[in-house]
């Protein structure tokens, strides 16, 4: 099978690779580009640990081919912090103990970032619905929901200050 050339912008940096068409996007990120912040959990599009943004839309990168993302703008967990300053979502997960083992956290944060882009002031129900495609087996979600709510407030305040 012939390889295909893929060129994507990941967290603002253009990256290119020659890949087999069957290579999954999550493996392009983790193994070809070394961006291991995006996790592979269930590998069946249930758990959401592999959630990233592709052209601004949250996506499960275990169920996308690298070749499908050719030309796309991709954002991963590595693109969230601004140098040493954590993104408000990262800070809020820290403050609210929104993680225990941390395996689901990159996907939770990327899905939450997309949700808050859609709806800057979600209710608790809307937060829970928004992360319904992301599974956490440690926390029972209570602190995750609190963290997203805290981050929503912080992002709205930052927006109002502009």
């Amino acid at each position, binding site marked *: *099978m012939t390889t295909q050339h893929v060129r994507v912008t990941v967290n603002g940096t253009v990256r290119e690779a020659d890949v087999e*068409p069957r290579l999954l996007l999550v493996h392009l990120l983790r193994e070809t580009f070394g961006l291991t912040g995006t996790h592979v959990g269930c590998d*069946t*599009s249930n758990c959401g640990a592999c*959630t990233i943004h592709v052209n601004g839309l949250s*996506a*499960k990168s275990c169920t996308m081919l690298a070749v499908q993302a050719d030309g796309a703008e991709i954002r991963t967990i590595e693109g969230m912090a601004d140098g040493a300053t954590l993104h408000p979502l990262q800070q809020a997960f820290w403050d609210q103990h929104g993680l225990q083992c941390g395996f689901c956290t990159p996907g939770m944060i990327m899905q939450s970032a997309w*949700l808050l882009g859609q709806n800057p002031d979600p209710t608790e129900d809307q937060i829970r619905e928004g992360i319904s*495609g992301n599974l956490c087996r440690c926390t029972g979600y209570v602190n995750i929901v609190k963290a997203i709510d805290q981050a929503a407030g912080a992002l709205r305040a930052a927006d109002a200050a502009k």
Partner: protein
Amino acid sequence: MIPSAFDYVRPADLGEALRILKEREGEAKVLSGGFSLLPLIKLRLAQPGLLVDLRDVGGLNGLTRDGDLFRIGGRATHRQILEDRPLTDALPIMKDAASRIGDPQIRNWGTIGGSVAHADPAADWPAVLQALHASIVLRSADGERTVPARGFFIDTFTTGIEPAEILTEIQIPFPPPRSGGSYQKLERRAGDFSTVGAAVQMTLGADGRITQIGIGLTAVADSPFAATHAEDALRGAHPNDELFREAAAAASRQSRPATDSHGPAEYKRAMVTEMTARALRAALARAQAQG
């Protein structure tokens, strides 16, 4: 899970896509959003030699009203449908269904055409489209044909689509006045495939009788089907709760559920009765609210 190797092409337009499908008939599969096909390929339940990605083919994701028809492009995502107010205001059943498919990430990428062509017996669109008396437009290099949604779903993962055809559009009749619909989905966990799903679309006459009725059922046979016995019991009648219970029981008798991880067949038959009755009541309330 690593899929077996395949070739991949991303044609620039529909004509090129159709030519490739014809040349590589039998080994090529069409890739739309990927959230139905890629899980199968990863499990190696499907091993196509060539994937034809429709990503760059324009004109396939529109949502437009054209006289008495809604035209939904095959590549319209569940999310686009969910957010299209002209469509969901006229047909709230479309919002009921779209909002319960998968999860937000899957709705961002999964497409109605992909889901319909894939024909999982537990997927939600096929029953809804049969309740709505929708039609499906299929294009090949040799021409175009439009087929009713009823009769399109032949068996599990099997439809009337030919290997060299692409599902380009879904056509739904614009509902007359005093119409209402509802999709009631029973799922074990949020975002699951249906255990049982009941789709109802109803139109009332000026005298309050049911003039048009469509009922589609999800996940309780080898493929989603129209509950025609229940429809016959309802058409022309004045709606009331007792009639709805009888019709729902007729729908249940027409279903052929299998015992699986979602529950025993007997339980599913009972749930067909319940979910159909709920959908009938909700559809009636919406139809009356419109009157």
